Every structure is written in structure tokens, then in C-alpha cells.
């Protein structure tokens, strides 16, 4: 385990070079360039607003600012999660020539896409923070939990990304299964709604680690309360297990990559 980390550290400049390349690649020869980083989450936010608006009208309430903020604050990490997984899953197969011909720790592939997507998240967050300032949402001291939650999110996503990258290399339909699951994932993850809206399903919804993370982020940023300890620990647990467990599996199967790709 220790040597895995050491080897990756030695190749850190390659990891950074790869990440920068991935970011450039997304925006090369496009008209909108970096705006794409904002466009995608905007669509999700817009859809969320429409859904929430519909739900509000049906139940006779009106749509208030905090609900808009909720949707925004949860859509961004969700967009990150979806994007990072889609890219990571195909990261090995999509770089077949490099995997077959040159040696460097293969973790660089999924990690660089996750980090690249993190950059997108950052850009989008900046944009939406500006918007949220106008909503006069305000900040509480609990915002200090946000970096921790983002860290959990990244670890969990990276872990899952590695596992799926591995899986897709050996079985090429993993990628399509992932696509389908992610498309419907938005229904059983509390992005457009709060888990508390469905009391009997609440625990089940939060058992989804992403659900737990998203709800915690919501609590900290929008509701301005401390995160629920149980779910915080739960999310942290999943993040660490997923990350190191997947990395271990990835590393163990790595020798076969060049042959089986």
C-alpha cells in the first residue's frame, strides 16, 4: 500500500500534466470554452427549479430562495460525480495506446479525469457563489465542514472511478451500465428533493453515500446547521473504504492491463 502511494507521488508531475491536458482537451476548438463548466450544472439547476416549482405548485406552497439554493448547492457536486465517473470509466480503454506502450502508474488515468472534473466544479462553484450572494443566503460557521465533505466526495468518486475503469477494461459493457445507472441515479439521489420529504424512505435514500454527502452539504451551506454526525461518519467511512479498497484492487489487476485491453 505504501509503495503504491510513493510511486504515485513520484509521478505527481505527470498526474498534473495529464489533468491539465484533460481540461484543455474538453475545451479545445469549442466556441464556449470554459463556459461549458457552467452550462452543464446550469441545466441541472434549471431542471431542478422546474421540478421544485411543480412540486411547490402542487402542494400549494411557493418556491422560496432557500429551495433554489438547495438545488444549486446539490446539483454541482452531482454534476461532478456524474462527469467524473463517466470519464474515469473509459479512462483506460480510451487511452489504449499509452496503456500498451509506456509505463507509468495507471492510477494517473482515472485520477486525472477526476481532478479535471474537480476543476470544473470549482469554476461552476465560483459562478454560483456569485449568484447565491445575491440571494442573501448568508454564511454560517458551519461552512467549515464543506471542505471535509468535498474531500469525502472526491475520495469516494475517485475510488469508484478506479474500480469502474478497471471493470470497463476487462468487460467493455461496464461503461454502458454505468451510463444507465447514472442517468437514473438522479431519481434515487436527493438532488432535486430533500430526503426529509419522504420520511419512510429517508434512511434508505441516505444510505446512498452520495446522498449522505449531498444532504450534508445542503445542511451546512443552505440550512446552516452542523452536519448530522451519523451521516457524516457514514460518508467518511464509505469515502475511505471505497478509495483505498478500489485502489488496492486496481493496483492488483494493473499487470494485466496491457495484455487484456
Amino acid at each position, binding site marked *: 500500500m505504501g509503495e503504491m502511494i510513493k510511486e504515485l507521488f513520484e509521478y505527481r*508531475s505527470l498526474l498534473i500534466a495529464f489533468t491539465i491536458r484533460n481540461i*484543455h482537451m474538453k475545451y479545445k476548438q469549442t466556441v464556449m470554452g470554459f463556459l461549458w463548466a457552467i452550462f452543464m450544472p446550469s441545466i441541472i439547476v434549471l431542471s431542478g427549479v422546474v421540478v421544485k416549482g411543480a412540486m411547490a405548485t402542487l402542494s400549494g406552497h411557493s418556491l422560496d430562495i432557500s429551495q433554489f439554493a438547495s438545488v444549486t448547492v446539490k446539483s454541482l457536486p452531482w454534476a461532478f460525480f456524474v462527469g467524473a465517473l463517466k470519464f474515469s470509466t473509459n479512462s483506460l480503454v480510451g487511452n489504449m495506446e499509452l496503456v500498451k506502450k509506456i509505463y507509468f502508474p495507471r492510477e494517473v488515468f482515472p485520477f486525472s479525469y477526476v481532478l479535471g472534473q474537480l476543476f470544473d466544479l470549482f469554476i461552476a462553484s465560483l459562478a454560483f457563489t456569485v449568484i447565491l450572494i445575491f440571494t442573501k443566503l448568508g454564511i454560517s460557521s458551519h461552512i467549515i465542514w464543506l471542505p471535509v465533505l468535498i474531500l469525502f466526495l472526491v475520495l469516494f468518486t475517485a475510488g469508484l472511478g478506479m474500480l469502474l475503469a478497471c471493470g470497463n477494461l476487462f468487460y*467493455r459493457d461496464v461503461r454502458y451500465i454505468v451510463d444507465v445507472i447514472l442517468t437514473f441515479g438522479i431519481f434515487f439521489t436527493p438532488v432535486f428533493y430533500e430526503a426529509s420529504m419522504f420520511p419512510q424512505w429517508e434512511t434508505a435514500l441516505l444510505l446512498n453515500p452520495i446522498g449522505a454527502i449531498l444532504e450534508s452539504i445542503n445542511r451546512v451551506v443552505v440550512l446552516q446547521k452542523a452536519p448530522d454526525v451519523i451521516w457524516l461518519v457514514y460518508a467518511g467511512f464509505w469515502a475511505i473504504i471505497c478509495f483505498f479498497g478500489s485502489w488496492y484492487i486496481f493496483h492488483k489487476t494493473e*499487470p494485466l492491463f*496491457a495484455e487484456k485491453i
Partner: protein
Amino acid sequence: MQPIECHNVWKKYTKGEKINSLRDLIPGLTKAFFKQKQTEDELTAKEFWALKDVTFDVRRGEVLGIIGPNGAGKSTILKLLSKIIRPNKGTFAVNGRLSALIEITAGFHPEFTGRENVYFNGSILGMSKRELDEKFDQIVDFSGVEEFIDTPVKRYSSGMYARLGFAVAAHVNPDILLVDEVLAVGDINFQAKCAQKMRELLKSGTTIALVSHNIPLVQNICSRVVLLNHGELIRTGPADDVIPFYQNIVTQKNEEELKRKFAATADRLQIQEKSPVQISEVRVFNTVNNTVNRLLTNEPLGIEVHYSTAQPIEQPIIEFDIVRSDGVLCCSANTRDSQSPVSLLEKNGTIKINAGHLYLTPGIYHLEVSIWDRDMIHPHAISKREIFRIEAHQLNLDTNAVFLPKVHWEINS
């Protein structure tokens, strides 16, 4: 501790399709469950050994040549040393920073400019950003694409592409360098630059392992050579010692291929089915010591033909052709042009031909004897093609010449 050490390395590959989708996983698992448990030593039906018990080392500062026919396992060794694949059995050790020129344009991305690709490829090959900054101008100058360095590489010609790739790779300066036949790009100018660069690397003490089919090059720069064939290490030693073995293997392969080709087309020579004349046997031999089908360049060649004919044939013309393996007709003679007319052929007999010293270049040849009517319009019989081999004792007869005459030189200065 040598820079590269390989001990008893075995590597097997699987042929055919593998399970590639989850849909095939379940039947695959079930099959595996019911099959016998296998050890590493055995091969399933679709597996084959790419490397068998290979042991060798590369010493500090030397250039080791790795030669062998296609499929011998040369690239597999390089991939093993670069840690791209792992051996099934055995161990290997690499002591020092290793860089492999196995696929020099692998990291290139078409959408990025030459400049960006140099940086990216450089970092893949292990150079730090600082190193790249320092060497950037050298690299671009070496490649000769200065003018286009800021254009996306998808607009490059394939020559520019390869030269830029090689330029980056050539400036890596590792302790150990693995080269896999990448030296064949560019015009003469560029090739000279490449050769010069190799020599510089050698002088600075880099250990190099070179895989190549270019035997003159290997002779030129390799101090030691390793010969592989079908995954086995046939011989190690100084270049002049090992290369004849390689040539032998290649010649043999040539011979077998020709034999197979002729066997396949043998039934096409049916035209003389109706002909009264049949050539039953053709032999090529050394007229001095009678060895069959193998001669040295400087030995006299004799041919013996056994024929039989149902009816007497008047005034036939007998001809023989010697054709090289690449199809060049090297030598030919017939009874009409050599003023040795044959008046009659009847029943059975033998035709003996003494061709003398032909000084043919070493290689694989085939002989064809034919018996024609008096005007050489239609053949009575054409023999089966007889394959024979010409060899030489010395090396370096890497020439396309048809024959190598004994020449007397006299120089007055």
C-alpha cells in the same frame, strides 16, 4: 548489479478472443468452474509461450543487440523490462532510470500543438518540467519542425510526426535506454542526426538494449548480441559470433516457406499429364563432394535429371533455370544455345549437367528443368521445383547482387 538482469523468464500469451463483455462472463465462469485446475506451467489450448526460460543481462555502458526473426519475443522482452507486462515465471531487475523508445508517438494528441505535445510526451517519458524547459529548443531543432511547432499535430505529415516524437525521446537521457526498431524515420539528414545522437548517448555511458532487424547496424554498434527464436534464447555473445546463427535461421525459414508454397501449387503443373515425357527426379549437387541441395558460393554446381519417355522424342531442347527466392532469374542454360544438341530421347535416362562455378550469392534458390520440342514452342515436361541453398563462410554478404565472381584486383599508384 547489472543495469538489466533477466533470470529464467517465462511469458505466455493467449490467442483468440477473450471474454469481453459481462454477458459472456457467466458462461465463462461456469466453464472455468468445471475445468481442471491448472498450474502456471501448463498451457490451455489457446495459449502459447512467448518467452521460454530466458536469461541474460546487459552490462553497464554496453549496447546489447536483440535480434531474431519475427515472433521471437524481442518486443515482449522490452515490454517486460518496461514493466508494461509481468512475467509468468522468473524475475528481472532494472537498476537505473529506464526509458523505452517503443512507441514514440504514443502520447501525442492530435488536437494539441507540437509544443504542448513535446511537453506532454516528455513528461510521460519521465522528464521533469524543468528539464523540458531547458531542452525544448534542442528538441525542436533536432526534429526540424520549428516552423510548425505551434500548429496542432493533426496537421503534421507522418514524417514530421515521427521526427518530433523521436526528437523528444532522444533527449530523455536515461541511465538505461530500450530501443525497439524506431530508427527508421526521416531523410538521410535526419538519420545521420539519429546515429550521431546514439553515439553521444553511448559516450556518456548510457546502457542500451536495441531490438533491430537491421543487421549491419547491429554489427556496427552492438558489442554483444542476443539471438532469440520462438521465445528461446539461442545464443549470446559478440556480434560476429551470433549473427551467422541468425542468418541461418532466416534462411531456413525462407526455405521452408518456399517449400510450402511450391507444395501448394504443385498440382498446377498438370499440363504435361498427356505428355509422353516425365521428369521423375531432379538433383542439385556439389560436383566435388556430392552433397545435395547445399553448396558454398565458390563450389561447382551440378544437376542430375532422371527422365522417362513413352515415345522417343527427336531433337528436344533441355533447359534449366535457377531462380532466387525473390523471383529473380539468376541463371539459365539450354542445349540449343550451348551448342550441345541432343538428337534423341528415349525410354529412361539421366541428364547430367555440370554448371561449374556459378558464384551465386548466398540464399535460397530453386531449380527448374524443362524439356521442350525442337522449336521451343511447347514443353514436353517441366520438373518439380527443386529448392537448394547457397551458403558462404563469411559474414556481411548482405548484397542484392546475383553472383559474386572471383575478382582479381590490381592497383597501381
